[in-house]
């Protein structure tokens, strides 16, 4: 049997003791030791991005990261966003989470914890990304349901809300508007 490790991880602002086999990944420890099942496992080999978490603010694939290697670093999982937003005086979920909800970007939702964290990291470094910036930043997060369009729209909606911009009409809204104007 391989060895067991005892160590501490800082997850969503709290330092937590962990006892797990040495070969366990960060994803396994988060899901099966700490009960933080929001981070998903879609492939366990670095292909899908469903396991994305933020380590010191940067997106990292938890299925390819040994848990021990994250000692002493600040880990943020999807469960951490809403409490952080509340602590900062906000209401409800993180504005980005709310935008994903509002814009229909969540179909099965399985890719979305990873997707939202990648998008969060993008917005933190680039407050008004173009579609090309989004395509780039999310290219490690596969979504099988949406075709990505509504994910981009959600990010744009969050940006528009924050910067008080007029959100772009979606294709079916523009179609409706055109119909109504000819009526």
């Amino acid at each position: 049997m391989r060895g067991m490790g005892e160590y501490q991880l800082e997850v969503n602002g709290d330092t937590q003791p962990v006892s797990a086999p040495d070969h366990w990944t960060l994803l396994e420890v988060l899901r099966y030791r700490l009960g933080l099942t929001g981070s998903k496992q879609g492939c366990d080999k670095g292909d899908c991005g469903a396991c994305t978490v933020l380590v010191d603010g940067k997106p990292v694939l938890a299925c390819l990261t040994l848990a021990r290697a994250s000692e002493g670093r600040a880990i943020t999982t999807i469960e951490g966003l809403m409490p952080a937003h509340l602590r900062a005086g906000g209401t409800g979920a993180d504005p980005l989470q709310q935008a994903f909800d509002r814009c229909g970007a969540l179909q099965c939702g399985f890719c979305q914890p990873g997707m939202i964290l990648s998008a969060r990291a993008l917005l933190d470094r680039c407050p008004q990304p173009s579609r090309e910036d989004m395509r780039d930043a999310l290219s490690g997060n596969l979504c099988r349901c949406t075709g990505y369009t509504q994910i981009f729209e959600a990010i744009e909606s969050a940006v528009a809300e924050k910067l008080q911009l007029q959100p772009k009409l979606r294709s079916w809204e523009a179609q409706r508007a055109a119909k109504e104007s000819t009526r």
Partner: protein
Amino acid sequence: MSARDLHGPGAPWGPHEPGSKANVDFKVVGRAHAKVDGLAKATGAAVYADDIVLPGMLHAKTLRSPHAHAKIRRIDVSKARALKGVHAVITGDAMPMKYGVIPWTPDENALAVDKVRFIGDPVAAVAAIDEDTANAALKLIEVEYELLHAFFDPHESLVRAEPAIHEGRKEGNISKSVQLEFGAVETALAGADVVVEDDYFFHGSTHAPIEPHCAVATYSPEGVLTLWSATQITHYVHRALARVLELPAHRIRVIQPCLGGAFGGKSDPFSLEFCVAKLAMLTGRAVKMLWTREEVFYAHRGRHPMYLHYRSGATKDGKLTGVDAKILIDGGSYSSFGLVTTYYSGQLLTGPYHFPTYRFDSTRVFTNKPPCGPKRGHGSVQPRFAFEVQLDQLAEKLALDPIEIRRRNFQGDFTRTVNGQRVTSNGFLQCLDEVERASGWKARRGKLGPGRGLGVAGSMYISGTNYPVYPNDMPQAGVQLKVDRSGLVTVFTGGNDIGQGSNSMCAYIVAEELGIPLERIRVVAADTDLCPVDLGAYSSRVTFMVGNATIDACRKLREKLVAAVAEKWQCAPSRVRLIEGLVIDLDDTSRSLTSVEAFHLAETKFDTLGSTGSYNTPKLGGDYRGGTIGASPAYSFTAHVVDASVDTETGRITVHDVWIAHDCGRALNPMIVAGQMEGSAYMGLAEALYEEHDVNRFGLHRGPSLLDYRLPTSLDTPEFRALIVESIDPEGPYGAKEAGEGPLHPCLPALSNAIYDAVGIRLKHLPFTPAKVLAALRAKQESAPLAAQGGKR
């Protein structure tokens, strides 16, 4: 169908009868509301199968066959059983009863009995204290195989019966064969002004939901088995468990937790569901099995590869005279839904165009590959691809605009297809108009510069079918409502929300009907102990059928609420209106109640408050064997225009834009409809350009990982423009039809047609890899002197 199943396409409230088309004032329907489970998914709170952790839970793993076709001579599990931490090991003899999702073709075992039929076929299962121990135990299982000749080419299976992949069948290695002819096709083709005859090939592809299959089971001291499974059809899993475990069905409870994508890939009952159930019964412990991504590829049930031969004739002015199809279907190693696939490959082509005559001859054969099954657009995406390319070939011969030839052949609404299917609402012409307008077809086509072009294609698809998989006359969908004194209404539905938003759809309908805010509605779904039976999420049936059942339940409840309030107010019931959490008197605005007060009045007057509703299809279909397969209460229609270019140096195709116009009847939530359209088009493009599910010459999967299988990333995916067409169907819930599968179909042929427009090569064999593009470009150049006479760019 009885009157109770017809609710009319209009709003429930208004000056006319509930549902009357003249009532146009919807409060909830037609708007872009968020989903009932959106925030739970966005915050990580939603619970998927693998998120379930139970005290003392064991972890199970499967041993799989390394051979494509072999007899099992001997299995010895004694060493595995003896390993510390192992609680149980089972093999095929633990569950010898065969099953299959179609009751006429039970040919699967939970674990292989006597033989294996593809690389990856499950042979044994182990439950242990953790996954590492279970994996170690698998290595200790000894299996002795006797190899058999393996079939990888469906053409061989067609003519060679021995060795039989499934013994004891008189059809040898043929899984299903259907020949149907409607009208005199040969005469019609002989009389045509032009005939195009060609071969097409549609490769295999798989669903690849991001969530792998997972199941958890417990067995209570009272003898009740509970299974949580990532399934899209709880009811069929329930039935299959009873059969295979030889338990009475009332001692089994099946629950679908939040589901991480399915697309048809979680429709069959799967080995892991039986294994965790059996292991839980044997060990007295909770047992979980989570498949690896590699195992999901073996489980497959994806799109059937098809070899398609089509002959179509048309008159000088482009009217079709007859269509003749011959299709060979590679079914892989088991029947799965294959009987239906075989029918669908022919039955679902007879719209949106009028076919005066039609014939198809479809044969599905077994091969020693992962079993095929239903993938989004089950059985009909492949023939649609072939036919829509052929229609373009006809247009070219006749020098007709590709959109124009489609218009000229439009079948109309409220009509009957050549194979006897009833068509109700049909917005296909508007779909063509929309994509023509939005893509700038007239202004831009032919002027996009070298190597870039536009292509169009159309399609139709079912909104559920009246064929209920196992014969019965009970409703296909049932819904229950429970009213709490707090004002909360709980909807119980057996429908499976697989991310398409069916739970939200139920909530929107209840909010509309009872005039209460969405936040006062909760939906409990897909739990066989709590919810009435529904046949599950397949054949795009849920919105149509569960939606209608929900309206039915609401109307019954509404009647009681209105009666109780009318009695208190001593007024005619027609004056009482439920709206936005209130009950108002239309003629006396000075009085109103809250809906909570109305609930209390109704509970006082009648009894504990609740209601049930159901839906069943009308009698549909052609009057011949198989005539009900593919018969739907309503069909959806789609048109796509694809804008694509080809790099003639590298053979790489770039898709710039996809315009998708889809007739979904009425968009109950346009945002969700658009999401289904975009997701469908994405999946179609993915299989057109990148994905391929195939085995090598030993039968080993060519790349059972998401990377090798090449799921498109955000960088590979073009812009999608969803354009919604609402034909308002007379029988759909508020006039709605399906939106989840139809919009996939035209994507692939529209792309092929765009490439023809761009560089003059006809891509008829999927997927369109750079190598195939380059070969076609070379072939075109070599025959250039000939082609020059055709005058094509």
